[in-house]
């Protein structure tokens, strides 16, 4: 029987390995050494590497980010973890005015090897201030790297290489991915060079671009559509700072159709950039107008009753694709994709309270 690994454990493994490989490495964040170990992702680190290298911190996100940057400038390798991306809004000055610009404005004399893990909440009443994905903000700022993982197979590789990178990297984890598993066999080695933009599923009818949890939904939709004779190419844009545009351009040249799925608000988003770039560069290769899916332009409400359609799911993706391709299939054709159980949890294992 094949053994399986899960996403949270892989994240944990990458951290252990990195700390082992670089004895200068420090890791800190609120609750990093607490009994729950940040959804299990940091369990055992403090024990293995001691409280000088792995430590809890005051609730002071702004200065603590600066302190991480300073330690990185000084020669430590730094990993910082925030239980929610939303809390990190307090530290934008340090991130943008210092970390992002340091290497550049000091003419290459110093570098800032800091990685900042940001966890995005969703569902179970996370609500307006515990469920924001601001990947578009980070991607807009020159000098930052932004990695948004989706798959258990390569998340350890992605995190390890983010940590070992000598630049500031935002590592944006969706909370609903933590329990995802894969066969240990399929896991990519930590050292294997990153594919910044990866074709996860080949297809010839339409190019579907996604990252984070949205990629899983896109893959589910693609599996289902295959049965209906629609062949989707699904591309993972995990590394937003360095999209391999030629992969996307070739795909459009092949398929002639594009759906971009954003895991944040649809407008003024990373999805907009992808759609804009492909429109500029693949003009003449589109058979129909490209389309987008994303979150609506209001905050995530808290109530179970209000979040039903807040996140586009596999079914919505399938509908959008068949609509784009002018397929006659009705909504019902995609009902196999309907989520069973509650829409506000990733699975029945999730029981709150946060």
């Amino acid at each position, binding site marked *: 029987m094949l053994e399986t690994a899960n996403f949270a454990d892989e994240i944990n493994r990458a951290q252990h390995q990195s700390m082992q490989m670089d004895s200068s490495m420090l890791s800190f964040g609120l609750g990093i050494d607490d009994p729950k170990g940040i959804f299990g992702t940091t369990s055992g680190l403090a024990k293995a590497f001691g409280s000088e290298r792995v430590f809890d911190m*005051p609730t002071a996100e702004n200065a603590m980010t600066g302190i991480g940057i300073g330690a990185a400038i000084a020669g430590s390798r730094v990993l910082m973890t925030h239980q929610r991306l939303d809390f990190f809004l307090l530290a934008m000055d340090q991130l943008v005015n210092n970390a992002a610009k340091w290497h550049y404005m000091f003419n290459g004399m110093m570098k800032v090897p800091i990685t900042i893990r940001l966890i995005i909440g969703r569902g179970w009443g996370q609500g307006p201030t515990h469920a924001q994905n601001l990947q578009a903000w980070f991607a807009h700022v020159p000098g930052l790297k932004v990695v948004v993982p989706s798959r258990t197979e390569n998340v350890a590789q992605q995190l390890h290489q983010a940590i070992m990178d000598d630049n500031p990297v935002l590592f944006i984890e969706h909370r609903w991915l933590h329990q995802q598993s894969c066969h240990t066999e399929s896991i990519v080695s930590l050292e294997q060079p990153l594919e910044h933009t990866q074709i996860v599923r080949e297809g010839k009818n339409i190019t579907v671009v996604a990252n984070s949890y949205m990629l899983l939904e896109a893959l589910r939709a693609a599996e289902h559509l295959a049965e209906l004779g629609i062949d989707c190419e699904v591309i993972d844009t995990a590394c937003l700072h360095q999209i391999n545009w030629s992969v996307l351009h070739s795909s459009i040249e092949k398929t002639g159709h594009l759906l971009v799925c954003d895991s944040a608000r649809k407008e003024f988003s990373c999805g907009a950039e992808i759609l804009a770039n492909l429109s500029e560069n693949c003009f003449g290769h589109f058979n129909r107008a490209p389309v987008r899916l994303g979150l609506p332009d209001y905050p995530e409400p808290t*109530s179970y009753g209000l979040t039903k359609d807040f996140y586009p799911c596999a079914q919505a993706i399938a509908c959008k694709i068949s609509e784009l391709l002018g397929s006659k299939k009705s909504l019902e054709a995609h009902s196999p994709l309907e989520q069973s159980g509650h829409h506000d949890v990733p699975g029945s294992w999730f029981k709150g309270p*946060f």
Partner: protein
Amino acid sequence: MKPLSDLYQQMLRIRLVEEEIANRYSEQKMRCPTHLSIGQEAVAVGVSSALTIDDKVYSSHRAHAHYLAKGGSVNKLIAELYGKKTGCTGGRGGSMHLCDLDAGFMASTAIVANSIPLAVGHALHFQTQNTGAISVAYFGEGATEEGAFYESLNFAVLKSLPMLFVCENNRYSVYSSLDVRQPSNRSIIDLAKAIGANTIELDGNDVVAVAEAANEAKTSILQGKGPVLMECHTYRHREHCGPNYDDELGYRPKQEVEDWLKRDPLVLAEVQLPSTFSKDKIIASISSEIGQAFSLAEAAEFPSIDQNYEYLYA
């Protein structure tokens, strides 16, 4: 000042409401992160006893007690936890975003320390409008680690605003004890004094002490003597977020937990009540109020998804 029996009754009511939330949480119908105030009721009740409807209150993630003590509707609270249309924010905010404008409870927010500046802004409005009311910010000792707290206190003192800062020092921020977050020789009171605030440090489980201190603070504030910071030492009985006890995790010393449970604010007040005080009758009436609140909440409708686009802009 309100008689002890009143204060006790209010604490009991809050306790029973929250215990019922805890009892029912595992039914998975209250689907939002929920931080119970059980063990800390004396602060909310004591402070509120000094406030009128015109005084405005802001709070944090742990706000149920502040909301109820200020006069927030229990029906709307429970309905909010259920995410129903009849909830205090119609299901938009959940447990971490309470509001009852009729009671002068402005808002609680879920980002540590970020409602403190709002409360100070409200006090600024009071000052420029010369209203004779005060603004109150409740927050935990963890929030005092945020720059927002420091900047807010500095400005409130600078402008001598009608502002009461209430710090509930329950010694923990989630699982983290004070010693990994604040210097051992740092006192919140001394810090506030150094900034120029008036201060009162007290036993936050002694409801009478809190009430007296709050009254005194309000008087001083309204005399224009500037903001007051009250540091109330207290303890939460249950886990940081959620309905259970979690002391099996071992993050709090056993002895400490036991000592504080003995100093339960309800127990401390109970022994001082007149012998004529009939707890049973009160419990019966509160229980029926609570039962009704839950029934109403369960029966109420979810807000309509069609309204999701409402109120994005005023």
